[in-house]
């Protein structure tokens, strides 16, 4: 475990990125950050700016317009950072999968490190996912995907879409 990862796991600043979610996951994320769970014990705090973030919690299906913004926001995050998908929507699309505004799975254009299924997942599930991510980082089993260049990010989300975005 190198110094970067060690430092990262001891002080995770969480940024919350809601991409046209139904709000239930967002409420559960905020629940997880309330004094009842007291994540500051582990150095986890909520930040308002993507530039201060280490851990991005994304929720929602990311429709055509939100996907472009999400990609832009992710490009602004300082490396190394982690992306955790919260809820069933970014995992499978759930019932929105066949909807007219469904673009493609977020994993196609975001490097997602972990998934937390559930509709919505409980705060305990979110915390457990973050703990697993931290353990994975510390044991070396998980390398932040933003540091890997596996070529899964397409330049163009959908041709011609940016014009009317």
């Amino acid at each position, binding site marked *: 475990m190198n110094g970067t990862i060690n430092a*990262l796991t001891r*002080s995770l600043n969480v940024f919350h990125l809601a991409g046209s979610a139904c709000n239930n996951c967002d409420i559960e994320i905020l629940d997880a950050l309330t*004094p009842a769970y*007291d994540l500051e014990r582990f*150095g986890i705090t909520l930040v308002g700016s993507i530039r*201060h973030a280490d851990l991005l919690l994304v929720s929602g299906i990311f429709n055509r317009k939100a996907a472009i913004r999400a990609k832009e926001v992710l490009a602004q995050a300082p*490396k190394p950072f982690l992306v955790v998908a919260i809820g069933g929507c970014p995992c499978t699309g759930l019932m929105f999968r066949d909807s007219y505004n469904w673009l493609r799975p977020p994993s196609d254009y975001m490097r997602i490190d972990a998934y937390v299924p559930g509709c919505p997942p409980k705060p305990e599930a979110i915390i457990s996912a973050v703990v697993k991510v931290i353990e994975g980082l510390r044991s070396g089993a998980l390398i932040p995907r933003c540091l890997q260049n596996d070529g899964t990010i397409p330049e163009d989300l959908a041709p011609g879409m940016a014009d009317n975005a």
Partner: protein
Amino acid sequence: MKGNMVLLEFLFFPGLLFTAVAGLLTSWVDRKVTALVQMRVGPPLLQPFHDIRKLLYKETCVPEGGATGLFLLAPLLGLAGVTLASMILWRTLLNAEATFVGDLIVLIYLLVMPALAVMLGSFASRNPLASLGGSREVKLMIAYELPLVLAILVPVIHANSIRLGDLLSGQAPVLSLSGVLALLVCITCTQAKLTIVPFDMPEAETELSGGALIEYSGPPLAMFKLTRAMMLFTMPVLLVVLFFGGLVSGPGWLPPLIGFLLWFVLVAISIVIRNTTPRVRIDQAVRFFWGPVSIVAVLAVTLAWLGF
């Protein structure tokens, strides 16, 4: 040789290293007490150190189209300012002979540097939210500097000297009516100078999402956080020196202990205010500082002049 000594003092004790460690510990006290107020456990002792260390490993993002040089220079300016201020203060505290004429004025100017750095950095980042935060910082500074300087005049009038060393003579201005009023004004202004609630509009997390510091990441952000932590440590020390006649003057261990307790009380007052008040609007803050606070400050100066 003397130059080397000054450089060592600036970098280690009582300059950068000492103030940084003390400041980060103070910010831990702040977070821990906040946690206890909210009935939770709170962060471990070394959490502020981990936060700074993590930021040093992060990438530095420079916004496109901004003033890159100024953007990267601003945090250094703030850090240098507060380090020098703390160094002058502690040199005088440890050795009252190390004072020079007008060092209090130099100190007041140096303590403006962190706010100035936030301002310059935010305007250099070419982010609309940051410039909004920066403009709020300007207004806030214009608002609180007048009563703060007026209140600092009270101990100067009491000691009849503008040198820090002469303020350490053991007499406490706070025992007089004008001293009490001036201390109250100073506590209020300190809250604004540290941009903590209720005067944290420049960084308002809910509306400006980080405000003035929104574009900063990595080491520059670490510098800003360090500067804030060091200010959180230095400002109460300055207040103890001004109003209680010094932390470590006199023989034996009792004066430093009492000085530390007074410092802790001032920090605790600041934390309790932070946890029990909501954020005010910028116009309310300006009205508050130029209205009641300035009037009380002028009253305190007048009383001190008349010998109360």
